[in-house]
């Protein structure tokens, strides 16, 4: 049976037997970087196509079916179109910050890939604050949006950036509290420990109703954090033309676009890791024979299956719900999600102390 960790370790052995340690490390870093960039490209292509297909199916349409067989090359064609477009910089814009903003968005998305466990023993950096690292670094994202909004020298951009700033800063709280309520149960922020603790069942099943509540809150909060509908006030087409990326075109716009999809992937991967056990197969308690059958499915398939299920959920939200108004958005966070998630955290702490979880 193939697995990603075996491939990685065989590459590592071959490299360390051929070169000295420093060069081995450099080559491994290059390989990791290139594969992350490759993953980005694949994710961009796949998620754009998936989004258009899901949207079409929900609206009883067919979706892209002209470019390539079954329209599978549609996102390739989109990429080529964006690559050959002229990248404009508006007059009166702060050129340095204007050009820097999309790269910051991209770099942040790359940094976020580090602690994600893609398969069993297949992780770039298993640091001991993994989950906190993700929620910390993802807050740099808001800076790139604010930067883009200010430096475009356009009132729509500025308004979109301000809305998005208020939105991301406030929804980060309830996303953090939802993550914390599972961290209370595991007693660790390390991604590998969190996954290991779900070897006898996923937290969403083991943690009773509070886990489900925090899962729901987490999904709502990350939908808002990634600026997707129904929380896409930052780029509300009907009011703000396109919000913070009104002035962007060509490759710079493509970077923003790609980073949005990569962010969706990352938050779904974190959600899958925390609530649904990451690469851990579906196990029921100590029912060994059943668990053994489940182990035959490779761990990477489990991880990507769960992640894409959550991505589908977020796309489902997008094509179902209408956009919220800004005051409704802030009411939802401060009057409903935050008090509920605080209460939920309290209940979860009690459950953890009393040992009521399975």
């Amino acid at each position, binding site marked *: 049976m193939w697995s990603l960790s075996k491939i990685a370790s065989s590459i590592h052995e071959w490299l360390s037997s051929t070169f000295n340690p420093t060069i081995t490390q450099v080559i491994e870093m290059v390989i990791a970087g290139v594969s992350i960039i490759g993953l980005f490209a694949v994710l961009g292509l796949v998620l754009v196509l998936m989004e258009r297909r899901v949207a079409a199916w929900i609206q009883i349409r067919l979706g892209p079916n002209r470019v390539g067989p079954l329209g599978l090359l549609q996102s390739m064609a989109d990429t080529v179109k964006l690559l050959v477009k002229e990248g404009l910089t508006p007059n009166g814009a702060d050129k340095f910050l204007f050009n820097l903003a999309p790269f910051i968005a991209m770099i942040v998305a790359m940094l976020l890939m580090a602690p994600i466990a893609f398969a069993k023993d297949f992780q770039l950096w298993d640091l001991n604050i993994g989950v906190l690292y993700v929620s910390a670094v993802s807050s740099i994202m808001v800076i790139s949006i604010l930067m883009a909004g*200010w*430096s475009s020298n356009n009132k729509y951009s500025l308004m979109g950036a301000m809305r998005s700033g208020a939105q991301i800063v406030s929804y980060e709280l309830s996303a953090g509290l939802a993550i914390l309520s599972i961290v209370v149960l595991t007693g660790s922020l390390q991604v590998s420990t969190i996954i290991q603790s779900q070897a006898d069942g996923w937290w969403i099943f083991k943690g009773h109703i509070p886990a489900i509540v925090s899962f729901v809150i987490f999904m709502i909060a990350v939908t808002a954090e990634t600026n997707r509908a129904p929380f896409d006030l930052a780029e509300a087409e009907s009011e703000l033309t396109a919000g913070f990326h009104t002035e962007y075109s060509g490759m710079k716009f493509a970077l923003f676009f790609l980073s949005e999809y990569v962010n969706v992937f990352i938050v779904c991967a974190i959600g899958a890791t925390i609530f649904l056990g990451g690469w851990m197969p579906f196990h029921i308690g100590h029912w060994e024979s059943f668990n053994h059958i489940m182990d035959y499915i490779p761990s990477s398939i489990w991880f990507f299956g769960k992640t894409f299920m959550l991505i589908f959920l977020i796309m489902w939200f997008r094509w179902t719900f209408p956009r919220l108004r800004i005051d409704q958005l802030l009411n939802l966070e401060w009057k409903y999600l935050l008090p509920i998630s605080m209460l939920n955290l309290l209940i979860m702490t009690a459950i953890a102390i009393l040992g009521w979880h399975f």
Partner: protein
Amino acid sequence: MMSGSTILFYLLATLIISCGVLSVLTRQIFRAAIYVLFTLIGIAGMYFWLQYEFLAAVQIVVYVGGIIVLIIFSIFLTQQAGEKLAKQQLDRKIFAGLAAFCGFALTIVQVLQHGFKMGTETPIVPTVENIGQRMLDVNNSGYAFPFEIVSILLLAALVGCIVIALRSKPEVNLK
């Protein structure tokens, strides 16, 4: 041959110092905020380099996600895009530069003359578990009491904010 960690240190130091200098010299206020942001990220990187990961994450959460966003919002609400700050007076600059340089020279001489006694104890890994247990320890020199004081301070700040926000405008008599 320098090791990777040495190269990393010098890169981070260059980032911190150059962005710090740019942030106090630039005349565009938004750029100053962005340079401060890069300085803070560089310092967070320095904490990572020192293997204080928890503090680095806290630094990024609080400064980047909170304070810099707040500063940028206040810039958005008070300044015009493209407007430059007033030019500083030359004598003021000279005075400030001289004072900063003298202070810097004095301190660095002091630091270099003072021979620090390097610690020889077995180092503790600052994991989250260790930090939590040491900080909330009530017996052997834990920091439970200061922790409570700081949380009361934060609560007071929160209440103060709400009071300021709730203060209703004085009713204007239209007659």
